[in-house]
């Protein structure tokens, strides 16, 4: 059984069909990136998997469970990093991460995690005073602090400088190597080619391609293949 699986997923908002019968899966121990133009239905799909939205049709399964109204022990196994932060503005990174760690029975060592992500240099600065890249790193730490089995990361390296980006990529690989299922929404072909094992390309709420990165590339560059798949969708 795949760690993350959607089958014929449908989600509509009034007349707008955000996800129109999408099916794909992501395996434990692998990094899967979800690519697609804005409005492709990526975020809606991920929110269904996080239990924030209820599908109108089809199914979403994470670790064998329906994420909609799933209990605290299920949520403890799923780490989420939101693109727009989702962290309290007045909090300081170290205090916030220690607080979030207290919500788990066996969290990671917060100090080691903050050193690893370079958060220790701004651990006592309120989040509202941090740069976008620094906030991204705190968001990533928040997603990983519970040592989750499944991690959803929404554009985790957007706005990061090259050093920090490389560090985050290494961390994503390590997460997969310890057995986690890592699902990353991104617009970056480089990120996909460097980090991902598998890739899902979505457009207009449908799945345009899915498989290993090499399968989807099919002998071309990922970028050429992506534009060939999504070219008429904009």
């Amino acid at each position: 059984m795949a760690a993350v699986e959607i089958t014929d997923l449908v989600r509509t908002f009034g007349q707008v069909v955000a996800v129109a019968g999408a099916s794909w899966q992501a395996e434990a121990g692998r990094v899967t990136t979800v690519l697609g133009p804005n409005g492709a239905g990526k975020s809606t799909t991920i929110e269904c998997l996080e239990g924030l939205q209820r599908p109108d049709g089809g199914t979403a399964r994470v670790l064998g469970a329906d994420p909609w109204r799933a209990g605290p022990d299920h949520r403890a196994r799923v780490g989420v990093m939101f693109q727009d932060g989702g962290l309290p503005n007045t909090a300081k990174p170290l205090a916030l991460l220690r607080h979030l760690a207290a919500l788990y029975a066996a969290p990671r060592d917060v100090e080691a995690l903050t050193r690893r992500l370079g958060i220790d240099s701004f651990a006592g600065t309120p989040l509202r005073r941090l740069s976008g890249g620094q906030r991204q790193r705190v968001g990533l730490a928040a997603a990983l602090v519970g040592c989750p089995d499944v991690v959803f990361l929404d554009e985790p390296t957007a706005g990061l400088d090259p050093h920090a980006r490389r560090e985050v990529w290494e961390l994503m690989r390590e997460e997969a190597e310890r057995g986690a299922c890592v699902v990353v929404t991104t617009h970056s072909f480089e990120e996909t080619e460097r980090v991902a094992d598998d890739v899902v390309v979505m457009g207009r709420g449908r799945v345009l391609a899915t498989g290993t990165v090499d399968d989807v590339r099919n002998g071309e560059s990922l970028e050429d293949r992506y534009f060939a798949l999504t070219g008429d969708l904009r």
Partner: protein
Amino acid sequence: MTPSAAPESTARPRAAARPARVFAQGRFETLTLLRNGEQLLVSVVLPAMALVGLTLSPYPALGDVHRIDVTAPGVLALAVASTAFTGQAISTAFDRRYGVLRMYGVSPLGRSGLLMGKLIAVGAVLLVQVLLLGGLALALGWRPQLVGIPAALVAGVLGTTAFLGLGLLIAGTLRAEAVLALANLAWVLFLGLGLLLPVATLPTWAEPLASALPSGALGEAMRGALAHGTWSWGAMGVLLAWSAACWALAGRLFRWAP
């Protein structure tokens, strides 16, 4: 950046026990509130200034009573509205705007844990307010009716519930900027409409309005209890009705998403 952040255990991750999660959230929210300078101004400094000013000045006329026996219960009622309504409305609205409510919703804490954490934080801050403002009032010569303390506690709990319900209702339905403006405006109106001074001191046309609002109801119930040692059943009924209406509406209309 070399030290490993490897997991401490290979066991399946689990949530901390529910009481531990709720306690952690209550502690975090309490410290956040107590460190917020603007909120401390509204919850302690302004009520303290109102207490001293209204007690030492001869205006407005409060009849043939020891002035502080009327002003101190009113200031405690004002403290309840500041923390349960204004403070929670604004902080919850901005937490919603920045996606913090959504983040806690997908964490092991969950929505009910977040709500319980807020209740703990409101209770803890109210305790600090009662100690500081009550202590100041006692120093100024306040002699509360000890027999009225149970009634004051019941009124305080009902008032907290009503004001928190009203605060969460607007925090979960309006834009954060609108909540900021409305919560501050309402705080000033509530202050004038029965919280701080007896409804009987208001112009005749405003009396029924103030009595029907949670501000007048809480103010009258606190003054009844601590100045006269009586249970103000009508005012408590008004608070109960506001609580029921606001929590029922908040349960239906509150939006967690930014």
